């Protein structure tokens, strides 16, 4: 047996959305998005770039890779992978970023 059959129209729609998001991420990279919040300049460009990339990745995973139509076992496997990647990134950065908070002799 084969997996779920996704309609071709949906594939074309996802493709168009991915292309638009690519144009958007290039355009927004040249904009100065540094709002002042409570007197502090916050650099939002990388946050926006990663949010767009994550939206694109979600579209690919859910529709091109059929995860939306897959079994719960597949969904749990994918989520577990992302969760462990999160542990790798967050705990490593938690260490490096906080090292200089306490000055050790």
């Amino acid at each position, binding site marked *: *047996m*084969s*997996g779920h*059959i*996704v309609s*071709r129209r949906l*594939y*074309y729609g*996802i*493709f168009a959305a*991915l*292309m638009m998001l*690519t144009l958007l*991420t*290039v355009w927004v*990279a*040249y*904009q*100065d998005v540094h709002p002042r919040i409570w007197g502090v300049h916050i650099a939002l*460009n*990388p946050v926006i*770039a*990663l949010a*767009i*990339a994550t939206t*694109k*990745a979600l579209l*690919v*995973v859910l*529709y*091109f*890779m059929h995860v939306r139509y*897959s*079994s719960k*076992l*597949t969904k749990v*496997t*994918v989520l*577990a*992978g*992302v969760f*462990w*990647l999160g542990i*790798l*990134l967050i705990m*490593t*950065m938690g260490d*490096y*970023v906080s090292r200089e908070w306490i000055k050790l002799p």
Partner: protein
Amino acid sequence: MSHNPEAAGHPALQHHFDSLEQQHDATTLGMWLFLVQELMFFGGLFTVYLVYRVKYFAAFAAGSNTLDIGWGAINTAILIGSSLTMALAVHAAQTGRRKLLVLFLGFTMLLGAGFLSVKAVEYHEKFESHHVPGSAFQLDPHDKHFQGVDPSNVQLFFSLYFAMTGMHALHMVIGLGILGVLLVKSWKGRFTPEYNSPVELTGLYWHFVDIVWIYLFPLLYLVDRYHHY
């Protein structure tokens, strides 16, 4: 998807599975476990990148601005296009259209080769500008991007650029090899609506490699662009 008694004698059914359906579920899970492992592999590279980007942000921004945003964006479009043709190939296999399947696998390979060609042009430019890490590495002191940054930290950026895009390109080359095998098998009519797991699973791999690039593009090409122009 009910149990199909006619499929019991299907030539593609391995003896240790009860049905093609069970075989499909097992191989899909196996492929996903492999892809999760790949996620952790690339995750290591992304973590190194993140640590040094936070530490040497100015050098990373300078290095990033030497990359050609046009080539990067074109390659992103090419790869997204190849993901579309791959998805359409899976659709053709599932609906039993042999000629369309061969055609779309061919398109996917062409786009994949196009991506690698653009990458070759970009690497060539990096070799000519002495931006490849090693003994020949040199930064133009008059270049406005490199004012006030430590060249060794820019070299670190280029090391990560070549490691990450190189690993990604290697995955593309492997993908092209697998697609070549599928192309021959499709031509011979090995894939039918009942049995097409290899096409579907190769699709999963190809889309995964696409996702890696979707993150590499903003992280390598789009660092601090508005500041430098």
